[in-house]
């Protein structure tokens, strides 16, 4: 779990934060400011300080916030001076923006605020359309404006070049003052709320920040995004009345409370208009994605039930136990609150997607750092054990007791809230609940909240809340803060607030706290209790150790001397049977019912073995098919919408490209079988425990992870082990790619770009209990999107409608248009995936879309474009819905930066303390270098951001620290001067791409460099030598390649796109290049292994070739460069195609 922060302000105005991985409240010491309120997002926290200014605290991260400023230098040729800065009067400025319309000399660029600093000076950009240009970076054209080329021609009369300079945001982990809304008329800010991060993923880091001034005006901060964390300006948003409090959810909803106690809701907030269109009257307040919580003036907490995207108003209010002065909804709809009596911090327990109201309040108490240093010995034992929760809040009044009854009732029914007619706390739908109607029968319904009441309030601090019906924001103390109070008046408190007392909080914000069910803090409850029995954590295992010892003694005592005795029970054959469906071998292929059995027996040498039987009927005749378990090479789950299918391959069937395909009736049954079959297969092959360091990793398109133990003969010359004989076993978890190296450092990246590191364990997922290690297995989640397409055809009468021609595709379909996929009927990939969002238009389609997400084309199926032309008669748009998988596996998250690619030096030293170079690309395209990776700490310690001028997509590090990378536009770069002392290297060298091809992935072995382009060609870099590591040119090896992995022996493995077997064709096949040797690094032909359906393979762990372990250093000339590839003339015919077709 990434570390996330909970922010809170105590009554003295000091800001504290508590991280989910942390042990104590940590005070933000770096400020003398006192704060009134804070509102947090994952990447930053905003606060109102005592001077009524807004401050921003951006979390420090390994990834710096950089902004690229650019300007263009334009020149014209004249016969006298050649190219010079003398332009024609009709020309653009000598220094301009890209369009030539704005005058932009270098000295016109200023830092936007004191939070920024320049990274370096201006320099000319020498990269032009993925190609390196001549020195100076000039591009030439006949005239402005025109298309520019990198080569100077006879008619090139003008030229221009781009200048770049980066500025970096430096004010991190400190409070940076944001200029106030109006400089002329100071109008102090009284409330802020940030949210809106789920409206759209682009631009990156966008937030909505809303502020309320003391005069009741509402302001919206424009332009907050990753590259501009402070935003650019304040815009006043007109409001129907005077606003006291505002709350902004992560999504499209913003609520505000008016002085009069009414609630208003902002309408029209969307991707293109994050500040919304207008206010509509509403009845309700504090908001999450799917929840609304509110606090009335008498400190009662209310939950709005029935709120969802289809019914945003909800159906009614439910009173909750406990009296709170404020509530705050954090990520995942988790709720945080401050108790009214003691100002303690509470967290709502049991908030899940199915029960958004949660179960009970739990006090959250963690020591503060200041407190910890001088806490007494009696408390230190508990404090040192970490945070701990105290008991639940008890209802204090009769009315609250009624609430607890409701809660109990609801807990018992275990489902949605039950409307209780006798329960006065459940208000009428559509009406603001009035606590006066029940709770305090003696009082009549008072007037709505007004300024008059407020003045009375200020003169009589204590009884404030009693007679105040309606809504006044979530905070009683809020009324006091309306005077010029800086922090909350201590006079309100009965006891003087002392340093050593429990913390009294004034404000809490959970917007940056990604609390999920398994919270480390809650986990600590357990550990604290078990520790209460023994003194130190080391002794907690004493009982465990003792049991192991005693069991050992028991076997010794009772069995050692009696081994010659006869066993009471003889071992025999064990059979497991079941019924399944089988994709029959003969045509027409279809699913037929079969009986399936696994017979296991102990072999003569004690090894377990087994046979699989599949009994079927052929022309009324009973027949069977069988496979010896020790001949099976893999059991692999297959992606199938309708059935729970898996495939069984043997070496023979891999050659045929025709596995035994079976479907179980339920997913659970399939998993039971898969786990059993895999264990049986591993038993018969004598494989157990975690994967070796040399293991070959691969990932299927379903996200399943497989690992294979290489035999020493796998890379043998001239007769390697055929790769169809490799045995693959599954490892728990769900990943998109896995990369390893030969010392056993293995990293993976999930579909949601989360980085994971292999813990050294095995099993997890469907392998529970016996086939799995018990420690080293962690919960793993992954999120991916399911896409469907909405298709429309144009007709002259009504324009684009969902009425297509009879020959057209379904109006709601998959990408191919062949299958109908409606919003309601499209299901998650399997029952293990659950929906976590609603359907939303996806604008991130590669061809681009219009503002409503449509793509246009002349007809189905065709190539689509993101704008409408006269020739377009059809259009489509993509809808996406996110679903989430929760599984387990030997993987631990490496927060917080999301990655799209990773590469580990394949041939690192064997020493456990040696730092292993690891490079990665973030999912935003930043190039990163991981520090502190060793075999003992495979997760490393921190990221080093390597500056680039553009976003990258692939990186690979090979022998002698050669780093190659590919930018999103296809430019290839070599990183110079990378070494152990200088892990990030010095500078990028732009390498020309193969002619007319855009590369997409690169892999660097010991000396070999291979790359794959977007058209599936595999290229080899020629003439790479220690003195000239950039090489000379790209040489074509093969087509039909999707991905390449070059190993520490320079062995080349790929995922091939199409491979023809005797019975079928497979896409996504693991293939091995044969005949690769130092004199012929390109190899001769392909050997086809497991597939199809594979997406990724990493061969980078397999360095099993003892004579080659000593590596030549490319930088150290004194070492003879053994095995450096010589330019080998390859006969043309040897360049086979990976597809073999």
């Amino acid at each position: 779990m990434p570390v996330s922060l909970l922010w809170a302000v105590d009554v003295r105005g000091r800001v504290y934060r508590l991280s989910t991985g942390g042990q104590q409240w940590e005070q933000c010491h770096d400020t003398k400011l006192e704060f009134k309120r804070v509102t947090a997002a994952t990447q930053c926290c905003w606060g109102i300080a005592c001077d009524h200014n807004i401050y921003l605290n951006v979390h420090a991260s390994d990834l710096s916030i950089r902004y690229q400023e650019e300007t263009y230098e334009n020149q014209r040729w004249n016969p006298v001076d050649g190219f010079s800065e003398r332009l024609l009067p009709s020309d653009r400025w000598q220094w301009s923006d890209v369009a030539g319309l704005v005058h932009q000399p270098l000295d016109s660029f200023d830092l936007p605020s004191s939070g920024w600093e320049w990274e370096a000076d201006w320099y000319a950009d020498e990269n032009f359309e993925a190609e390196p240009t001549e020195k100076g970076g000039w591009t030439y054209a006949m005239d402005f404006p025109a298309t520019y080329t990198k080569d100077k021609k006879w008619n090139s009369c003008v030229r221009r070049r781009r200048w770049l300079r980066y500025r970096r945001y430096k004010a991190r982990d400190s409070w940076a003052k944001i200029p106030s809304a109006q400089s002329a008329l100071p109008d102090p800010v009284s409330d802020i709320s940030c949210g809106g991060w789920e409206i759209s993923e682009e631009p990156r880091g966008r937030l909505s920040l809303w502020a309320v001034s003391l005069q009741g005006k509402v302001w919206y901060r424009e332009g907050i995004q990753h590259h501009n964390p402070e935003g650019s300006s304040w815009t006043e948003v007109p409001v129907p009345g005077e606003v006291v409090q505002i709350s902004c959810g992560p999504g499209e909803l913003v609520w505000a409370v008016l002085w009069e106690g009414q609630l208003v809701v902002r309408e029209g907030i969307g991707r293109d208009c994050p500040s919304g269109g207008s206010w509509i009257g509403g009845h309700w307040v504090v908001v999450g994605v799917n929840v609304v919580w509110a606090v009335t003036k008498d400190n009662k907490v209310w939950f709005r039930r029935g709120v969802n995207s289809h019914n945003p108003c909800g159906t009614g209010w439910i009173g909750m136990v406990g009296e709170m002065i404020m509530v705050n909804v954090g990520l995942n709809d988790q709720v945080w609150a401050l108790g009214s009596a003691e100002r303690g911090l509470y967290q709502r327990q049991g908030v899940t997607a199915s029960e958004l109201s949660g179960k009970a309040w739990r006090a959250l108490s963690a020591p503060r750092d200041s407190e910890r240093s001088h806490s007494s010995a009696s408390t230190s034992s508990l404090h040192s054990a970490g945070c701990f929760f105290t008991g639940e809040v008890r209802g204090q009044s009769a009315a609250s007791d009624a609430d607890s009854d409701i809660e109990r009732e609801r807990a018992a029914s275990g489902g949605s809230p039950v409307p209780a007619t006798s329960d006065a706390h459940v208000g009428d739908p559509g009406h603001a609940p009035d606590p006066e109607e029940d709770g305090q029968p003696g009082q009549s319904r008072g007037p709505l909240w007004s300024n008059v009441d407020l003045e009375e309030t200020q003169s009589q601090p204590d009884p404030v809340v009693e007679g105040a019906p309606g809504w006044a924001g979530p905070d009683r103390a809020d009324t006091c803060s309306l005077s010029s109070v800086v922090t909350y008046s201590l006079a309100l408190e009965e006891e003087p607030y002392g340093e050593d007392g429990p913390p009294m909080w004034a404000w809490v914000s959970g917007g940056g706290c990604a609390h999920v069910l398994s919270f480390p803090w809650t986990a600590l409850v357990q550990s604290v209790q078990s520790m209460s029995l023994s003194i130190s954590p080391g002794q907690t295992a004493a009982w465990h150790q003792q049991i192991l010892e005693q069991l050992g003694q028991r076997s010794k005592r009772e069995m050692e001397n009696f081994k010659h005795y006869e066993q009471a029970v003889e071992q025999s054959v064990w059979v497991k049977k079941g019924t399944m469906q089988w994709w029959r071998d003969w045509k027409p292929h279809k699913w037929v019912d079969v009986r399936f059995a696994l017979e296991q027996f102990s072999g003569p040498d004690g090894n377990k073995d087994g046979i699989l039987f599949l009994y079927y009927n052929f022309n009324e005749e009973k027949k069977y098919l069988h496979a010896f378990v020790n001949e099976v090479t893999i059991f692999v789950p297959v992606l199938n919408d309708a059935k729970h299918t898996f495939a069984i391959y043997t070496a023979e069937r891999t050659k045929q490209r025709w596995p035994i395909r079976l479907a179980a009736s339920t997913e659970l049954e399939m998993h039971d079988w898969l786990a059993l079959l895999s264990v049986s297969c591993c038993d018969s092959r004598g494989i157990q425990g975690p994967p070796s360091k040399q293991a070959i990793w691969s990932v299927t398109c379903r996200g399943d992870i497989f690992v294979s133990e290489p035999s020493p003969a796998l890379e043998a010359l001239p007769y390697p082990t055929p790769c169809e004989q490799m045995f693959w076993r599954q490892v728990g978890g769900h990943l998109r790619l896995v990369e390893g190296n030969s010392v056993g450092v293995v990293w993976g990246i999930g579909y949601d770009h989360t980085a994971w590191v292999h813990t050294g364990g095995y099993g997890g997922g469907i392998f529970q209990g016996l086939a799995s290690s018990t420690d080293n297995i962690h919960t793993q989640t992954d999120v991916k999107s399911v896409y469907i397409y909405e298709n429309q055809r144009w007709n002259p009468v009504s324009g684009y409608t969902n009425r297509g021609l009879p020959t057209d595709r379904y109006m709601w379909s998959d990408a191919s248009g062949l299958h109908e996929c409606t919003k309601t009927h499209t299901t998650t990939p399997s029952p293990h995936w659950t929906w976590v969002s609603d359907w939303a238009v996806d604008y991130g389609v590669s061809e681009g879309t219009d503002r409503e997400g449509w793509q246009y084309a002349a007809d189905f199926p065709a190539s689509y474009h993101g704008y409408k032309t006269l020739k377009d008669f059809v259009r489509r748009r993509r809808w996406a819905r996110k679903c989430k998988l929760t599984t387990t596996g030997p993987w631990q998250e490496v927060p917080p930066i999301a990655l799209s690619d990773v590469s580990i030096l394949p041939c690192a030293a064997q020493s456990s303390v040696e730092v292993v170079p690891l490079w990665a690309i973030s999912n935003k395209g930043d190039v990163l270098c991981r520090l502190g990776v060793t075999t003992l700490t495979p997760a490393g310690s921190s990221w080093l951001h390597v500056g680039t001028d553009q976003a990258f997509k692939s990186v690979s590090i090979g022998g002698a620290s050669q780093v190659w990378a590919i930018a999103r536009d296809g430019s290839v770069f070599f990183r110079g001067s990378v070494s152990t002392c200088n892990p990030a290297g010095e500078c990028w060298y732009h390498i020309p791409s193969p002619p007319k091809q855009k590369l997409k992935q690169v892999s660097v072995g010991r000396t070999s460099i291979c790359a794959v382009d977007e058209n599936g060609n595999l290229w080899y870099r020629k003439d790479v030598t220690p003195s000239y590591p950039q090489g000379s040119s790209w040489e074509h090896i093969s087509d039909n390649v999707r991905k390449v992995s070059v190993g520490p022996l320079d062995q080349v493995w790929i995922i091939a796109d199409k491979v023809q077997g005797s019975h079928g064709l497979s896409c996504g096949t693991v293939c091995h290049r044969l005949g690769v040797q130092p004199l012929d690094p390109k190899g001769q032909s392909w050997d086809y292994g497991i597939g199809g359906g594979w997406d990724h393979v990493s061969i980078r762990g397999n360095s099993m070739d003892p004579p080659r372990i000593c590596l030549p250093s490319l930088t150290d000339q004194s070492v003879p460069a053994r095995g450096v590839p010589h330019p080998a003339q390859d006969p043309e015919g040897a360049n086979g195609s990976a597809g073999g077709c």
Partner: protein
Amino acid sequence: MADDKDVLRDVWFGRIPTCFALYQDEVTEKEAEPFYLLLPRVSYLTLVTDKVKKHFLKAVKPEDVEEMWFEYEGTPLKWHYPIGVLFDLHALNTALPWSITVHFKNFPERDLLHCLSNSVIEAHFMSCIKEADALKHKSQVINDMQKKDHKQLWMGLQNDKFDQFWAMNRKLMEYPTEEGGFRYIPFRIYQTMSDRPFIQKLFRPASPEGHTHTLGDLLKEMYPAAIAHDGDAKKYQVLIQGIEPLLETPLQWLSEHLSHPDNFLHVCILPVPTD
């Protein structure tokens, strides 16, 4: 580092070397050699003694053969207790092998249940499992299993197939993570000094305040005398699967790892041998 899986394996493969001898008075035909066998601790006497029966039938007149039963030092052995429990309870501190006397006559109707076929053992075993699951999961897990799954549990025990048994039994050992344990721990406490067959009460793996219950907590509640107080000499041995776990061992862990295949944690309390 040792894995808890190894604990399960050790528990399952626990064996007691046993010497079966025919009761002197029943020897009629010819002298019967004693019969030596390794008995699985987790199984039942009548389930694993087919060989014993076959061996001694040769020495007994057919007309004298009634139901076979076992006795140790004058105590008839209850076949419906797991073998390990019988051993720990009656013969733990004696020399091995365990000498059991075999009878074919004078079945002690008052002390033992009849066991005429394996189906009786199966019925007893399954009812124990069901009772245990009722305590652990309100019977939800066992009821969700199919008939063949039940059969797999039984066949696993009968044929001494660890993998086969645990492939299914692990489901019975699961619990929702948010609850942190079973509803109640299925346990039985046996004592030699009492006429009560065993103590069995409702006991949760954790207190309402969330404290993890330990073996010590269980004993405090069920059999306070078994806990030695500071300074006092230890009076009782508390045995589970033939070993004495520390009192601070969490009960939930014990239930998951040291239970017998019937899913009960069988605890034997014996006075410390005086010698």
